[in-house]
């Protein structure tokens, strides 16, 4: 019995075969990808290190150096001797994606734990911040963001940049041998409606996606730098977390720091665009703009956003909104429109920025009236379109679920009728329908389980359920006392915060990867046991 960590082939009958003979462990592809993902973190860490070095106000360079060393060494040790073989089995896909993300999160937490942000004793909080970064959630357990060094904060933004498009997709861009399994890898990291191939080879598809992503980031950076307010550092930082619909900011009051409707408009547009399927953007770059109107879930996403903005603006304008002291906040129509639009779009695309100028402004949506908070909660659950960087259960799944439910009622009246489930005009095959319904049921079940665990630690109902939904949908803020002007230290129990960390990972990797991540090691273990 030997460990299969040499270059070899993955044969259907023999298992993993090298020149030396048969091997019993088939964990090589997973280990290889985990190592590669860790190596990919190094450039980002180096950029943050450079900034920290150049910054005169802080000296957490050694924390970042440690992180670089760990990333390169651990990544190298895992990557160099292993190989993917001929392709990936279905099992390995899920394990690879899940373990890569966990490894990257741990490495990404090292600068926080080794530096002055948290201490090694509070590694779980560092891990929370790292996972919130990579999963593009945007929840924080920092009381004072601005206290930390420029480089560390930039690393925080960079983690969201990585996580938005995904480290595995990054791996697919450079590993031609992953071509065969690459499509399923990309689907496991963030499944789309149909894995639309943008190019004949999967590597090209992955590269194109990253190019569009980088392009959006650059455009937003430029726009933010040009308007008065943000300097270049701010522009780059916020552009990265806009493109990934993450929501981290380098300021305590997030976008409220600028109090500028220009900045908010740019960020709103960036978030909205990133909530739309990237395939449609690719087609638009090739002058084919019909994709946007033909795609049923994009239409619904736009429709939901517009209706939500209208509803929230109307209610915020007409009703009296009271601040934390009980005084009525004085807002005109433009104020209501600005704050409603920003918060609706940021929650609907799973962003997580806040434009509150303090706990007593209208941007602090925990002050809004209960039906509006329910609307925000529903927006959190629904999320953006498939194939985008936003989170949530995705619009197309909700569409299919409704169509499916209406069809059931129709079948009571016409039991022998054949009524297909449709998405827009196109019928959806039953297998896909079942997968979608299975996903939604699992999403609901895991959210409820998370809520039960968090409330069991003592957190109140409203904050717990909105926190769990926020984590699963990779949103950012919750309701109640864990809202946009507060942070998740409200959940005093460390167990509650760990539950949220797990929920964030599960939600980002679209449930199945984390739920099935142990299937490859389990299968290898079973084979190992049966060899005797």
């Amino acid at each position, binding site marked *: 019995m030997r460990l299969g960590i040499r270059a070899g082939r993955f044969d259907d009958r023999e298992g993993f075969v090298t020149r030396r003979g048969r091997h019993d462990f088939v964990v090589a592809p997973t280990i290889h990808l985990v190592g590669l993902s860790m190596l990919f973190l190094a450039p980002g860490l180096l950029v943050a290190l450079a900034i920290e070095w150049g910054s005169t106000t802080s000296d957490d360079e050694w924390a970042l150096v440690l992180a670089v060393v760990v990333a390169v060494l651990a990544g190298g040790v895992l990557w160099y001797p292993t190989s993917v073989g001929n392709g990936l089995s279905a099992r390995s896909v899920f394990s690879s994606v899940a373990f890569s993300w966990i490894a990257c999160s741990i490495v990404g937490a090292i600068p926080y734990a080794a530096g002055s942000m948290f201490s090694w004793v509070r590694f779980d909080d560092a891990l929370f911040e790292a996972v919130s970064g990579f999963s593009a959630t945007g929840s924080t357990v920092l009381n004072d963001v601005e206290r930390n060094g420029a480089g560390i904060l930039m690393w925080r933004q960079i983690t969201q940049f990585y996580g938005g498009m995904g480290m595995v997709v990054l791996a697919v861009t450079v590993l031609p041998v992953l071509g065969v399994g690459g499509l399923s890898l990309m689907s496991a990291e963030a499944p789309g409606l149909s894995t639309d191939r943008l190019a004949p080879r999967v590597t090209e598809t992955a590269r194109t996606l990253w190019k569009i992503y980088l392009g959006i980031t650059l455009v937003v950076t430029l726009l933010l730098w040009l308007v008065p307010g943000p300097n270049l550092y701010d522009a780059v930082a916020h552009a990265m977390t806009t493109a990934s619909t993450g929501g981290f900011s380098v300021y305590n009051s997030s976008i409220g720091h600028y109090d500028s409707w220009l900045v908010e408009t740019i960020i709103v547009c960036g978030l909205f665009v990133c909530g739309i399927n990237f395939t449609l953007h690719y087609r638009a770059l090739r002058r084919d703009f019909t994709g946007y109107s033909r795609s049923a879930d994009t239409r619904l996403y736009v429709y939901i956003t517009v209706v939500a903005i209208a509803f929230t603006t109307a209610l915020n304008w007409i009703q009296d909104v009271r601040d934390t002291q009980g005084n009525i906040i004085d807002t005109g129509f433009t104020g209501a429109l600005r704050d409603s639009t920003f918060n609706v779009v940021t929650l609907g695309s799973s962003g997580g920025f806040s434009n509150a100028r303090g706990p007593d402004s209208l941007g602090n949506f925990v002050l809004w009236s209960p039906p509006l908070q329910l609307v925000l909660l529903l927006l959190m659950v629904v999320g953006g379109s498939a194939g985008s960087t936003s989170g949530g259960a995705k619009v197309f799944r909700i569409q299919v679920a409704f169509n*499916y439910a209406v069809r059931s009622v129709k079948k009571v009246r016409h039991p022998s009728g054949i009524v297909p489930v449709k998405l827009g005009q196109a019928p959806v095959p039953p297998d896909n329908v079942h997968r979608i319904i299975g996903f939604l049921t699992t999403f609901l079940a895991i959210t409820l389980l998370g809520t039960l665990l968090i409330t069991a*630690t003592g*957190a109140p109902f*409203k904050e717990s359920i909105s926190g769990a939904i926020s984590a699963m949908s990779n949103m950012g803020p919750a309701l109640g006392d864990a809202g946009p002007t507060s942070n998740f230290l409200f959940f005093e129990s460390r167990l509650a915060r760990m539950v949220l960390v797990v929920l964030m990972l599960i939600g980002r990797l679209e449930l199945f990867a984390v739920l099935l991540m142990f299937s490859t090691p389990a299968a290898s273990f079973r084979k190992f046991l049966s060899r005797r």
Partner: protein
Amino acid sequence: MTRTAAAETFSDNSGNTVKPIGVYGSSVGFASALSAVMLTISSAFAIGDDTREFIVLVVVAVVCGLTGAALLRRPFSPSALRPVPTMTAAVCGFILVAAISTIVYLATGAIERVDDALYESVAGVSTSALTIFEDPSSLGDGVLVWRSATQWLGGVGAVILAVGLLPFLGGSRELAGGPQRRERTRDALSTRPLPAIRRVGAIYCVVTAVVTVALVVAGMGVLDAVAHALSTVSTGGFSTHADSIGYFDSVAIEAVLVVAMLGAGSSVAFAWLLWRRNIRETRRAFELQVYLAVVAVSSLWIWWLRHDSDIGVSQGFREAAFTVVSVMTTTGHRISDWGSWHPGASTLLLVLLVVGGTAGSVSGGLRWIRVIGMAQFVWRELQRQLHPRSVRTVKVGRSTISEDSVDRMHAQMVYVMTLGAVASLVLGLFGEGLTEAITLTISAISTMGPGFGDAGGVVSAADLTRPERAVLMPVMLTGRVFLYPAFLSVGAGASALCAAMRSIGVRR
């Protein structure tokens, strides 16, 4: 929608042809007849108490009795059962009982405003405990018994719908509850609707009588025993006192009620099998086992979560067990304000409330069989990610659930969530807080009882404004008739209205 003409003709004893009645007639007749019986019983309690109540109850009883007798003497052809008219007729039956009850409340002076009387009637018929009375003991005896009787009638209607009608109208046979068998050639109750309905009615009456006697033995007065038996067997939850069961503070009474509630939350088919001494069949009860296991585990978990507070060990266990059973069977009897408990406990209870009791029982909610079916479905999908070409079936215990039924289970979940979201939104628009709106809506759809707020405490209908109560009325009724019959009835009503408008010449 074409009407099928009754193909058979009937003749009465003297040889004249008698026109048979359709589903609407029999539903109205049935509802009237049963109401008459209940009104008579209530009037018996009003004898020594209040003359006005007695007269009103007797008069309404006589009117209902005559109507019911006249309608039910006509024959009814079961082959005329078609899905949409039957469901609409059932909903009409519920509404009729609510209307009778409104008249009773107004005529006896128990409630002054029409909309309040209507609300209390609907809360009764839909077996929720969302009462507008903060202190029911101020009502007269007859009205108190009638109040609980409305819940009993609502429960009878619901369980007949669930077990005797819906499985034969295109619903899932699995939702008629009962033991799981590999082949469903013989349903526990009957393969035809009418015998099933008769048996269900018989079981219901017997169980109510038994519970009444048990409560009297446990120490309640006769009035309280009758009222509580009526509202427990129907998992309704109306009580004769403001503190609900907390008023009695008696372990014996709580024990009797726990057993009664558990029985009410189990499928009627099991009661029938036990009556026929068919013990062998009752062992294959996967759903029931899951249900009882969840009751046990939840009670222990809640008891453990609350062990830090200032209550004693035995009191804590009493409260945990009673509340868990009351919530899981969607009854609503209270011995403590569970909204102000540890948030882990109250959230768990809220989740259990959504699920409700077992299939084929009189409790509300989504039912455990749907949860089991959906869990199996999810497991199957996870396996399919690894083995895309595998073929698996969804099973509960030993019986396989057809794909159509699985579809319907998921659809029901979507309905519940949509109705919940819309109702919470509307309640919020009328001024309720977020937590209150959500818990009240969940409670109304599962027909349990009061909700709770951010600060804990009990939020009952007495704390709601009139528009909010008006919103909750259709929600409670929809929840009681298992949602999709209500949707279909509304659709049928709308299309009937359009047809009527077209026939009187209103053109587009």
